[in-house]
């Protein structure tokens, strides 16, 4: 099926749940008005990124009023959004929730929490333990949060689990100003999203935020990428944007006929070799 995805390249306020809920609701309404079928938000869209000790204060449980409100809105448009999730045993996760037809369809808890360079996520948050694809009205989907995408195994697992659409929610800090046209971090991401789409014959929706937190900029540049790895739509660099991308449903079928890498992928060999490596590493 053809459908329209909206990438809400917003600028959340650090630690201000109410303001960010209002931002999200406005973007959702905008998506509905524009006839979009799905709206994707950045990582930690409801809270901002460099939360540090604010993590427990802005965390939401899945039955919080905010998630209920988003659920209700998802009767009119499918929603993928990032927030801090608190579990019943008081672990805090960097999570993304996918809501559709008034229900929570899936929650992904970020697995790869970076702690290098300017990052400090695992100090404040618990690690997710799984990558699972799930069914939506657009077919099977997999969600990744920022650093997850940098681990080749993550999108691979999701694709092997049947995902044909990868949604990546991101808060990527801009760095690496050099002689070249764009930012170092943006250039690296653009290679990554496009290559992942091409290798896995999946469409990729990448939504990255903008704004500054303590002098660190988030560069935006959200993208819709076709299963051949071609960028069909790209958001503005360093400023708020709302990208509406028309998705050609047939492109995925045609791409999978043209280069049936996923069909030929041998899960048994992968599993066998990974088991062997795991065993040998133990020795």
């Amino acid at each position, binding site marked *: 099926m053809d459908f329209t995805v909206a990438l809400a390249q917003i600028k959340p306020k*650090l630690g*201000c749940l109410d303001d960010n809920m209002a931002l999200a609701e406005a973007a959702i309404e905008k998506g509905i008005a524009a006839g979009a079928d799905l709206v994707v938000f950045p990582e930690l869209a409801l809270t901002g990124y460099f939360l540090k000790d*604010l993590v427990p204060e802005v965390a939401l449980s899945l039955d919080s009023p905010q998630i209920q409100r988003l659920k209700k809105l998802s009767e009119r448009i499918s929603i993928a959004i990032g927030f801090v999730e608190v579990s019943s045993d008081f672990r805090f996760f960097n999570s993304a929730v996918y809501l559709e037809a008034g229900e929570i369809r899936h929650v992904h808890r970020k697995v790869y929490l970076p702690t290098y360079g300017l990052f400090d996520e695992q100090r404040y948050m618990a690690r997710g333990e799984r990558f699972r694809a799930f069914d939506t009205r657009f077919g099977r989907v997999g969600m990744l949060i920022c650093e997850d995408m940098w681990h080749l195994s993550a999108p691979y697992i999701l694709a092997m689990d049947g995902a044909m659409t990868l949604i990546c929610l991101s808060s990527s800090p801009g760095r690496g100003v050099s*002689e070249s046209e764009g930012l170092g971090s943006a250039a690296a991401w653009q290679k990554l999203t496009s290559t992942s789409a091409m290798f896995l014959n999946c469409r990729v929706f990448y939504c990255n935020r903008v704004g*500054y937190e303590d*002098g660190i900029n988030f560069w935006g540049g959200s993208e819709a990428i076709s299963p051949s790895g071609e960028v069909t739509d790209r958001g503005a660099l360093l*400023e708020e944007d709302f990208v509406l991308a028309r998705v050609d449903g047939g492109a995925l079928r045609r791409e999978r006929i043209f280069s049936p890498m996923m069909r030929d992928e041998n899960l048994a060999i992968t599993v066998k070799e990974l088991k062997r490596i795991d065993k040998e590493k133990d020795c």
Partner: protein
Amino acid sequence: MAGLTVNTNLLRRILVGFVRDEVYKVGVRKGVLGLSGGIDSALVAYIAAEALGPENVYAYCMPYRTSNPESEAHARLVAESLGINFKVIEITPMIDAYFNITTDADNMRRGNKMARERMTILYDHSAAVGGLVLGTSNKTELLLGYGTLHGDMASALNPIGDIYKSQVWELSEAMGVPREVIEKKPSADLWAGQTDEQELGFTYREADELLYRMVDQRMSREELISAGFDAQFIDNVARKVQGSHFKRRLPIIAKVSNRTIDRDFRYARDWGK
């Protein structure tokens, strides 16, 4: 050597956006800075004028009686070409009053006192006009510790603290800082004929080539030597970076509670903004 050259369009966008965003977030619209006549503060003035509008930038030139008159002329030139607010406030009376009671101070103490005097004036004016003090120390100076703690190193926010002096030159060209300001020899202007490079014992260009590889690329001493850097120069610069590290950190607090400010009690400065 490659590496230090930057895409000035992109850098300009990021730094202008930074000043606008971080100033507005605090709930004010204005920026205050000391305009010395040198290139660093001139560049910050250019960035601030683009970010906030020239009418919202307040620049103060604060000469001492021994300051080179050319400095004030250059500061004025920058202010006039941008159309920002400009005022000259002489620090001679307060500096002389102090050193009349403390007569044994050497050049370094005198220079530090002047830098701190200027910063108290800037903070006072930031309160008067309702703006934030914009920092004008570049990455080279900050790494070498070539600045006065709580003096010129102080600020509410600093747009150029992550760019090297060579990059300050490059961006200044792109933003149209007057030629005479770009081309003159960098000087703290503490005494007649003083230049930074003479005082440091090497050029900013040389320091930047080394610091970029040492700090940004994390090259080892062996790698730096095989890249052609002199061992003594490497050690000299490394010692300066290490020795001045205290200037780049907040004062340390003796820990006694379970949640000590900054060590455990950690929030971004932009908390709630």
